[in-house]
């Protein structure tokens, strides 16, 4: 048994058996991270003791483990990027990195990972940053339990919290990102997992996908961002059990879908957003078991959306459930619970006997003349909504939920 364990250890850690630990502290022989990296051999561990280290442009070009003890401060003094990883198998753990330089020509980052595999970035605290963690052309890495606190004011001179570019198989978990441009940004990055993160109060998006496929994000919370999550020009994205909250404003969405195909949106909660989900040119998307609570618009469909299925969701107290700007509908609404449903269930099978029509005439009017929103909940509006319900003229007449649930759905 002992032999076997030893064997595994040898196999897994390889050269690490012979690895050494190198100490760095303000009063040590090695008083900078750079000097420690210079003398370190592959698979060594560098322990950075508590203290402040004024360094930037630190390049990690060999497989090393860099561990901070009690959060030593790496201060870039606003001179540029701070740590760049260019080797495979690098771990960075427990550092407090501040003062990343801002530039309009170069994306300076607190930590940049370049063409690397099997990296781990964890337990970092990043403040006063431009870009936080920038991962390019890398794969099989983990970004775990970091805290990124920016102070972004305007979009044009701020960077993203965690950015992935041409990278794949990256796991991003338990991070907290606030006050940057995009909390987490993926571009040309496939097969990534984004889980249990909190992204709040960011200028633009909490999470942003561009040209990225087969990614999964789940159990995240997106709160009070310019818009919660934007998924654009991507395929096969799974969005599971996330919370989208309080994304308020003129162009504010919980979730923005643009040119997305074959995605799954399951088990999410959209609460108090101006628009819960804004959909444009997105096809074959499955919406299931989501809660839409107190949104201005639960779902706003802006056209060219085909063969989507919206089933078994709860639509609770939204000002508008669904808004459509065309008369054509090719999407399926079925077995949802609508709190605005006023029908009855005489045969007691839990399904309303009259179909529910989630698109109101008034949402069409507001779309045309936004100021009319002030007449929301007026009796006159109820009257015209009713007449439209009886004989649809402006709204798609086949947009019906034939099996509206009588009770809120639980899953």
């Amino acid at each position, binding site marked *: 048994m002992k032999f076997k364990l030893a064997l595994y250890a040898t196999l897994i850690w390889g050269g690490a058996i012979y690895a050494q630990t190198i100490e760095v502290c303000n009063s040590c022989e090695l008083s900078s991270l750079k000097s420690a990296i210079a003398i370190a051999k592959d698979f060594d561990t560098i322990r950075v003791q508590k203290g402040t280290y004024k360094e930037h442009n630190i390049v990690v070009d060999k497989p090393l483990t860099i561990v901070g003890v009690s959060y030593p401060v790496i201060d870039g003094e606003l001179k540029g990027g701070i740590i760049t990883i260019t080797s495979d198998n690098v771990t960075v753990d427990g550092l407090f990195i501040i003062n990343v330089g801002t530039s309009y020509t170069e994306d300076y980052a607190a930590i940049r990972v370049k063409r690397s595999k099997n990296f781990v970035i964890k337990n970092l605290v990043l403040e006063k940053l431009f870009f936080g963690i920038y991962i390019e052309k890398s794969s099989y890495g983990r970004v775990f339990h970091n805290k990124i606190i920016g102070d972004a004011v305007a979009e044009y001179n701020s960077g993203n919290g965690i950015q992935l570019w041409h990278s794949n198989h990256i796991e991003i978990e338990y991070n907290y990102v606030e006050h940057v441009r995009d909390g987490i940004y993926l571009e040309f990055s496939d097969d990534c997992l984004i889980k249990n993160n909190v992204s709040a109060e960011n200028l633009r998006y909490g999470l942003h996908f561009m040209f990225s496929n087969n990614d999964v994000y789940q159990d995240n919370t997106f709160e009070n961002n310019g818009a919660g999550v934007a998924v654009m020009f991507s395929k096969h994205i799974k969005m599971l059990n996330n919370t989208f909250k309080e994304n308020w404003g003129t162009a504010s969405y919980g979730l923005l879908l643009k040119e997305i195909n074959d995605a799954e949106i399951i088990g999410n909660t959209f609460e108090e957003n101006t628009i819960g989900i804004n959909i444009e040119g997105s096809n074959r998307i499955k919406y299931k078991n989501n809660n839409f609570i107190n949104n201005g618009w639960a779902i706003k469909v802006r056209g060219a959306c085909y063969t989507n299925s919206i089933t078994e969701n709860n639509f609770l*107290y939204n000002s*508008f459930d669904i808004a459509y700007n065309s008369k054509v509908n090719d999407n399926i609404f079925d077995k949802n619970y609508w709190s605005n449903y006023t029908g009855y269930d005489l045969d007691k099978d839990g399904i309303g006997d009259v179909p529910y029509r989630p698109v109101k005439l008034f949402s069409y009017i507001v779309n*045309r003349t936004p*100021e009319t*929103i*002030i007449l929301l*909940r007026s009796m*006159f509006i109820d*009257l015209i909504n009713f007449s439209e319900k009886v004989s649809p003229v402006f709204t798609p007449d086949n947009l019906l939920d034939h099996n509206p649930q009588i009770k809120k759905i639980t899953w």
Partner: protein
Amino acid sequence: MLKILKYSFYDLMRSRWSYVYFAFYLLLGIVLLFLNNDLSKAVITLMNVIIVLVPLIGTIFGVMYYYSSKEFTELLLAQPLKRSSIFLGQYLGVALSLTMSLILGLGIPFVFYGLFESSAIWDFSLLLITGAFLTFIFTALAFNIALSNENKIKGFGYAILLWLCLAIIYDGLFLMTLIMFEDYPLDKVSLIGTMLNPIDLSRTLILLKLDISALLGYTGAVFKQFFGTNFGLMVSFVMLTVWVLLPVVRIVYKSKKKDF
């Protein structure tokens, strides 16, 4: 005035109509809670009902009370009392007893349903405050109508017409105006339009509470200032107060000139 108020109030508190009104609200509250099984949803439904129904009941009841207590008013007029205090006393008596019916009728079922432990309590308070304001406004308007019309039938007719105008027709015209001039910036116009109708005004208060996410979707800066801050709430309350005061001032003015 307080004495008149006291006696009018007593008189009304014992009248059949107060009970009917009270029972109606009690029933409404119970039925809504029973159907919805959910406080917040019941509160939302109630809000829709309240802003239409309270004005109707306020006007009808106000007109009715005025006409039915005409002789009593004459008796009071012969007493050493100021005219304004007689009419204000009666007005306040009606408005207060209606408000009482509203608050108790709705309050009791909701309290039993666990209102105090619920987060809906603020929405519910707002609902009652709005309901009270509407009662005071529309009872005052009703007294104005009754004071200006000796003919009972005419008075009732005008009262219903007033309600129809403010509850439905006004919004229809408002909507048409907005759509017709949609090429112009309309946010100020739409807010002013709202201020000029007490029913719309109360509706706005309710929107502020329930639909703030939708309202913030609109771009206009004035809108944003109005709905995004407490400014809207303050302005609405001030305007509601003005809406109570104006007809009351007219009651005083009109009652001084009137022959009985």
